[in-house]
């Protein structure tokens, strides 16, 4: 078979799949976003920008997502980095693989079930009652942005640890020893040697977590009690409750655009950071 036909044949299934399940649905969403709400909900054909002009009504949901997502990512990063460092540098080689597996395994369990445990822990009979017994008052932990943040860190920590670990693994310990010999204090050794080396992993992990967080729906739904609304929750409501499909489509388009924009900006930023670090000499 001529190479060109073979190439086309090999490409065909993937192309058809992308067309049918990615391009078509997104086009439908785009078309719907200009439509009007049906009488009892749903979609009726129309052409208007009304839905886009109305996006401001979901401003709080966007704001929540755009603040908590980066915050959650940063928190995950801060907590995950030392653990990745420990696993790469300090862990006993005998146990290293096992410890790694133990970090990944929770991620392979349904995030639903893991988040569900926190409903109990943060509810009246969990941690608050424990704190109450200690005489520290009875704080309301569940159904708050705090609860959602805990759920996020808990859910995405494993995803953040792994790429950073992979990067740090490549660090040659002798570099650190040399720096120590030359009198550099520990923090300086870490900041100027380990952190730059970990940057690719940090970038990968952060981007993965951030992208997933932007579309998050489950954690705010379960730990937010209807009081903490992400864009994901607004979308679910618009399609599965208020049944305003055209407006929901507009919100979906807005979300995708915001994501593409932030990811592009993010990649440019990390490329610049990683590039800058490369210029700094190691000594």
């Amino acid at each position, binding site marked *: 078979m001529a*190479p060109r036909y*073979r*190439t*086309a044949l*090999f*490409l065909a*299934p*993937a192309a058809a*799949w*992308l067309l049918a*399940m*990615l391009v*078509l*649905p*997104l086009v*439908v*969403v785009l078309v719907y976003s200009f439509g009007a709400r049906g009488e009892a909900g749903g*979609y009726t054909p129309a052409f208007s920008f009304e839905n886009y002009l109305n996006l401001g009504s979901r401003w709080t949901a966007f704001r929540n997502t755009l603040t908590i997502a980066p915050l959650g990512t940063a928190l995950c990063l801060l*907590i995950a980095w*030392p*653990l990745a*460092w*420990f*696993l790469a540098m300090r862990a006993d080689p005998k146990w290293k*693989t096992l*410890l790694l*597996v*133990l*970090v*990944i*395994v*929770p991620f*392979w*369990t*349904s995030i*639903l*079930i*893991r988040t*569900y*445990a926190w409903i*109990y*822990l943060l509810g009246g*009979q969990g941690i608050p009652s424990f704190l109450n017994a200690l005489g520290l008052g009875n704080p309301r932990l569940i159904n708050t942005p705090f609860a959602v943040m805990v759920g996020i860190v*808990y859910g995405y*920590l494993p995803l953040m640890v792994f790429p950073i670990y992979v990067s740090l693994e490549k660090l040659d310990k002798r570099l650190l020893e040399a720096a120590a010999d030359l009198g550099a204090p520990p923090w300086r050794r870490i900041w100027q040697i380990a952190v730059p080396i970990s940057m690719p992993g940090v970038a990968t992990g952060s981007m993965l977590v951030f*992208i997933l967080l*932007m*579309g998050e*729906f489950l954690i705010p739904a*379960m730990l937010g009690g209807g009081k903490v609304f992400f864009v*994901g929750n607004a979308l*679910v409501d618009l*399609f599965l409750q208020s049944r305003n*499909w055209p407006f929901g*489509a507009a919100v*979906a388009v807005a*979300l*995708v655009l915001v*994501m593409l924009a932030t*990811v592009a900006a993010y990649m440019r930023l990390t490329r610049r950071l990683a590039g800058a670090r490369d210029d700094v000499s190691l000594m």
Partner: protein
Amino acid sequence: MRLYALAIYLFLYIPVGIIALFSFNAGRHAAQFQGFSVQWYGKALANPFVMEALRTSLIVAFASAVLATVAGTMAALALQSVRGRLRALFDALIYIAVIVPGIVVGIATLIALVTVFGWLNPLLAALWPGDAPPQLALGYGSLIAAHGLFAMALVVILVRARIAGMDRSLIEASSDLGATPMGTFRQVTLPLIAPAVLAGFLLSFTFSFDDFIIAFFVAGGETTLPVYVFSSIRRGVTPEINAIGTMVLAVSLAMLVTAQFILQRGRGARG
């Protein structure tokens, strides 16, 4: 440092431990421990809907992973010979497939399929020669197609990265030595990309099995395990969910440890 690591591990596993603990609860409520019992495991295993949801999840995960791996690998190989605008377009689509949030994919697929079915079903009913025309609806097909999309994009990325890192001289040497293109492919290229293909398959399977948000929208009348757990939580919490969760965790753990063991063995054997 060690203390910090210990604290993190505790943080990760205490909630899991609590789930497991309450799965042995003799009482009815998932929040008050009333004695030890394994009744909920029996109930979960005997519950036909749990077993059905599990079966659906497994079938969808396997089917979507296989289809995605095949289509994705073929595409990754073919893309080597594609340049210019077509290549850029393809790359962009793959990129978008990975970036777009699951919830948007789920919703978009839902409304696209509902619209398309809305046109096709009356058409089929009018054209069908028999009494019972097939009714297109959301279900296994839509699940496999939707899950497979993301999985396929993943496979394309993984295999392409692997191909890019491959030593071309091996392929050249193989043709120089007289092997047919098919032979080169079978004996040189395929083994070299195999790890990426396998990784892609495993990741696709896991992604589909654990997915909630896409299934939530496009499963139609079918139920996958995550969707079942979600509606159980709404239905009224009994320790049965804890039992299901603990079992899923135990199986994942066992699979991972086994895989690790096999990999170690393999590495050891090769010296």
